[in-house]
């Protein structure tokens, strides 16, 4: 399929359009937003569903088949925060705190971007390895820890004891629901899974329907911050688009090398390219007080997230095709 038509398919997906509607609503100064608890509730549902589904699939997959993909995923979790940090520090001349803070976001992963990639791949008629949610869980925290450690070491200011923060990240919502869901999905077995599958199936209608509402609110949150683009300046805007492409390509290549299918490569690339805006921000905020949160959040939420949703994912998919993943 031509890149153009791929892009179009992606642009006209309910996910992309719901996100666009959210941004539009804020641009016309609408005061509408999803009730806070609903937004949180959908997030819980999406993450739990990801975990359960992943666990159910895991029950079939021979553990060995995951070894290599898991390995490269953790590798990505170690490389991406460092590459981000040094680009910001050396090329962008940002303070250690700011560099580390932003790096923590790009070293981690955005679950919603992951889901969007999965949905996109499916719409391309390709399949994705069932154990991808496991990789998602693996990529969640290492990047944050590495970046924060880096910031804590390098920064002259005393920064809050880092261990309590490591713990907070490891026990945060995403980890509980993702890892917990994986365990449950793995343990309950075929029959029980089929009882709840229509509700939690990430290809199911409930999941897809809820996802639209979630992206509508994400659009509103991002639209809210469009104004901050001025504050972050051209370098970070370029950074928020180019680094994902680099990380995404790296993810695709490593995924291919680890034997992932074209679908798996696309999703792993997207994971590497995505930036966390849920787990990372509070961790960075309390550990590196003098890191400016406007920088990291605007990059992750207002630049990289939309870029990945709209153009990034199709690009990583094309790369995956090029490297000739089957």
């Amino acid at each position, binding site marked *: 399929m031509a890149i153009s038509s791929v892009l179009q398919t992606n642009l006209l997906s309910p996910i992309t359009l719901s996100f666009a509607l959210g941004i539009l609503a804020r641009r016309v100064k609408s005061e509408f937003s999803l009730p806070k608890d609903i937004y949180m509730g959908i997030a819980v549902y999406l993450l739990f569903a990801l975990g359960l589904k992943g666990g159910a699939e895991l029950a079939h997959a021979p553990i060995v088949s995951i070894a290599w993909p898991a390995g490269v995923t953790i590798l990505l979790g170690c490389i991406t925060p460092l590459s981000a940090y040094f680009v910001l520090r050396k090329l962008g001349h940002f303070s250690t705190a700011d560099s580390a803070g932003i790096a923590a976001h790009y070293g981690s992963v955005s679950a919603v971007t992951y889901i969007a990639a999965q949905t996109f791949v499916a719409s391309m008629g390709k399949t994705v390895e069932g154990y991808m949610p496991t990789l998602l869980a693996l990529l969640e925290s290492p990047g944050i820890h590495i970046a924060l450690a880096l910031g804590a070491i390098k920064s002259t200011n005393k920064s809050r004891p880092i261990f309590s923060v490591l713990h907070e990240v490891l026990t945060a919502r995403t980890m509980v629901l993702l890892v917990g869901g994986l365990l449950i999905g793995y343990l309950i077995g075929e029959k029980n899974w089929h009882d709840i599958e229509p509700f939690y199936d990430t290809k199911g209608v409930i999941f897809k329907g809820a996802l639209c509402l979630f992206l509508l609110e994400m659009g509103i949150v991002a639209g809210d911050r469009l104004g901050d683009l001025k504050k972050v300046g051209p370098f970070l805007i370029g950074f928020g688009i180019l680094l994902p492409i680099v990380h995404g390509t790296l993810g695709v290549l490593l995924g291919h090398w680890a034997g992932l299918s074209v679908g798996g490569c696309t999703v792993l690339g997207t994971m590497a390219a995505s930036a966390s805006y849920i787990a990372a921000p509070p961790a960075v905020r309390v550990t590196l007080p003098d890191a400016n*949160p406007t920088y990291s959040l605007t990059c992750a939420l207002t630049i990289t997230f939309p870029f990945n949703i709209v153009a990034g994912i199709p690009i990583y998919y094309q790369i995956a095709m090029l490297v000739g993943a089957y």
Partner: protein
Amino acid sequence: MQTVSLKLVTLVAETVLADPLSRDLTRLGAKGFTITEVRGEGSRHLRSGEIPGQNVKIESVVSASVADKIVDHVSREYFPNYAVIVYVTDVAVVRGEKYI
């Protein structure tokens, strides 16, 4: 009923500080506190947190000396980098010993 006069310390801060601040309060001698979810606007326009302007209000009835300690600590540790304000009010309570 005779009452004693104490201080009500009120902190308004970005949500992420709820736990650190409550820990600090307890460490500095507060016997209890009440937390309210609020939203607000100030001069700093810091947009930390996914949804900006989401703050917490932490109120604690304490002795004058503890109040000083808290105000002192907060303005030293948090003012420079965080969206936070603190103010102190006189309050009358019964069974003052509960708070000291």
